[in-house]
């Protein structure tokens, strides 16, 4: 990376921001593709007879124009962020969980059951509701891990199938009198739902700044995101998680219990999705009742947030805000005659716009590397450099098994620092390439 005339700290910061060599290319390409995605969305509105500018204005008005609009946006941000952080954890371990939609519902179910059945005074009930949702959804996701561990059932498929089971379970719960069906005198049932959870099981608003209502859930979600980001970046556990995700064979070789670790990661991602479900139940996003449709696709959207944030919990915070804004704006958009489904299109296009450039540019770089003859660094004396610099000769493979196996023994000394020896001489070419390759895998 070229020196930009900034001091050491600044450079370190820039390097951290820089997702590897070609980081600026990726940035520029992302700006271009996001522009393209927004352009396509505008075109779609124009073709179907709407006005792109009016729609944009409506989106803005519903989500950001006033403190009240911001309040709505931020209410959506909390559950989205929780789901996304969980998805980051599981994706990083390679145990790709796509059942968040169901886990959100299970969390809400467990929370609702505790909230409606236990007569506990004061805010203790809220704590119990949140705990129940965490435990319930954690176990639900843990079932998938168990099925994988003992019967080799594909995680993606089992989490997906269990989403549909969860949906029917909720429907069953609110249709069954002895479980959670609403107790009403008249039988004029419109849609099945549970009773509302009591007042002391609801998250309170943290003060009322000029009309801006900050819900406690948001604070909770941000804290969870920051804590998990630190855990993943700075602890042995986080490092092992990454190892398992990048190369399970090498991790096993280095003494990591892959199945257990992946299972825990999966359970954590489920637990966080469950917590998101509890927020849907206890914060004013919904009606404070358990309803079959209460997940509002938060599970699917949270997954998309994690994709855009490239499995980085801290990056997930701004992305979740973006998605929350789109959600709040989308429901306002409907008032102007443009269906809010448009927002779903915009979201999907945005995800593609964010996900594709790094991968495409990584691919182009690999091609270019493959075309070049072996670089002079391959004759370098440092043993670590020898392990990393075989890559240019090694046609198109960024992260090969041999690469990580070579990193294996070093990594058996646990701790992030020990396993990332920085060769002084080959410098950025080798290490940054590794990082690039890792992120390519993770994306």
């Amino acid at each position: 990376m070229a020196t930009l005339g900034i001091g050491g700290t600044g450079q370190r910061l820039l390097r951290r921001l820089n997702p590897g060599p070609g980081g600026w290319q990726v940035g520029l390409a992302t700006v271009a593709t996001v522009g393209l995605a927004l352009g396509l969305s505008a075109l779609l509105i124009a073709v179907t007879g709407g006005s792109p500018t009016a729609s944009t204005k409506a989106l803005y008005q519903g989500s950001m124009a006033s403190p009240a609009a911001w309040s709505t946006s931020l209410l959506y941000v909390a559950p989205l962020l929780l789901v996304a952080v969980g998805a980051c954890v599981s994706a990083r371990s390679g145990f790709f969980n796509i059942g968040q939609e169901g886990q959100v519902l299970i969390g809400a179910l467990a929370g609702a059951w505790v909230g409606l059945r236990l007569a506990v005074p004061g805010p203790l009930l809220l704590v119990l509701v949140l705990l129940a949702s965490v435990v319930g959804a954690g176990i639900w996701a843990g079932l998938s891990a168990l099925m994988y561990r003992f019967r080799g059932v594909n995680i993606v498929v089992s989490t997906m199938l269990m989403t549909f089971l969860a949906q029917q379970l909720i429907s069953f719960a609110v249709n069954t009198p002895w479980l959670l069906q609403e107790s009403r005198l008249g039988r004029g049932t419109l849609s099945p739902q549970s009773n509302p959870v009591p007042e002391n099981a609801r998250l309170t608003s943290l003060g009322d700044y000029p009309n801006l209502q900050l819900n406690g859930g948001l604070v909770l979600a941000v804290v969870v995101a920051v804590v998990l980001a630190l855990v993943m970046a700075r602890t042995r556990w986080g490092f092992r998680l990454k190892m398992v995700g990048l190369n399970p064979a090498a991790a096993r070789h280095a003494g990591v219990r892959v199945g257990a670790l992946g299972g825990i990661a999966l359970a954590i991602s489920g637990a966080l999705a469950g917590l998101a479900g509890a927020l849907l139940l206890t914060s004013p996003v919904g009606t404070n009742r358990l309803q079959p449709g209460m997940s509002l696709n938060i599970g699917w959207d949270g997954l998309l947030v994690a994709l855009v944030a490239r499995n980085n919990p801290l990056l997930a915070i701004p992305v979740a805000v973006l998605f929350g804004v789109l959600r709040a704006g989308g429901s306002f958009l409907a008032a102007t005659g443009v269906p809010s489904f448009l927002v779903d299109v915009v979201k999907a296009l945005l995800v593609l716009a964010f996900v594709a450039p790094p991968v495409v540019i990584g691919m182009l770089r690999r091609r270019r590397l493959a075309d070049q003859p072996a670089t002079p660094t391959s004759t370098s004396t440092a043993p670590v450099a020898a392990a990393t610099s075989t890559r240019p000769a090694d046609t198109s493979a960024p992260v090969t098994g041999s690469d990580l196996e070579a990193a294996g023994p070093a990594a058996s000394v646990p701790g992030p620092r020990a396993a990332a020896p920085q060769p002084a001489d080959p410098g950025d070419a080798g290490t940054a390439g590794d990082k690039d390759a890792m992120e390519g895998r993770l994306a």
Partner: protein
Amino acid sequence: MSAADNIATILSSGARLTVPLAFAACGEYVAQRAGTLNISVEAMMLGAAFGSIAVASATGSATIGLVAGALVGVAVAFVHGILSHRVQINTFVVGLVLNALVLGLTSYLITVSTFTGHQVWQVNIPVLRDIPIVGPMLFVQRWPVYLLLAVVPLTWWLVERSRWGLELRAVGENPQAADVSGIEVNRRRRQALLWCGLLAGLGGAYLAVGEVGSFNQNMTAGRGYLVIAAVIFGAWRLGRTLIGCVVFGLADAMRLALPALGVTMNSQLLIAAPYLLALLAMLVFATSHREPRALAQPFQRGTT
């Protein structure tokens, strides 16, 4: 209504509900044998359902609509193939995004436009339809149902008997070995996906221009996921996959028919049954290792 009539009704509506699943399952089966755990089959079906109604409404011909639907399926498959087997983005990520994109796009477009309903013609064979119980199921159906009779053997022959299929299975089992023996792994996977798109498109289009005659928002309602479940339920064998589709179709038909017959049964359980069955099948059959070894693993030249 007599008992025989009831059974005939359930069977014939079960057949109707099985057909879109069976079409798409034939496609998903091919994609999975090639190693792509394709979760965008939902997007293929939904996009095709929309495309078929839109084109049928524009041209006035349901048959042209059906063809257009199949082409929409192919288009989604093409995008999926490029993104996951050329650009090498994680195939689940691609599938999820495509599902979200198509769901949003079709929901949006159907609310800003109106289409007239169209249905393909019905085969109604005079004498045979009067056979008790199985008559209505076999001889009073829309014509794409009979297309299925050609698609199933063709798919089986393609995968199990043709050279293309041999290479396809090699790609799904051991892409490295296939690569060494000169097969272009990712191209073969893209081809398998296109076949999947074509058939999933036919399934989705049948749903729209065959069974219902119009398009509703999210009209596939998770059928694509059911198809994936069917392939897994069938332990990656075409015959058993189709049996899975029939089971799911019948369960669906029962759910619709039982309340009308006065039988009370837990409807949630019936809806969940296919997914539960697929999970149980995976739990039971997992030890026999019948899934393609490289299922859902991306292939890049030089990796291990």
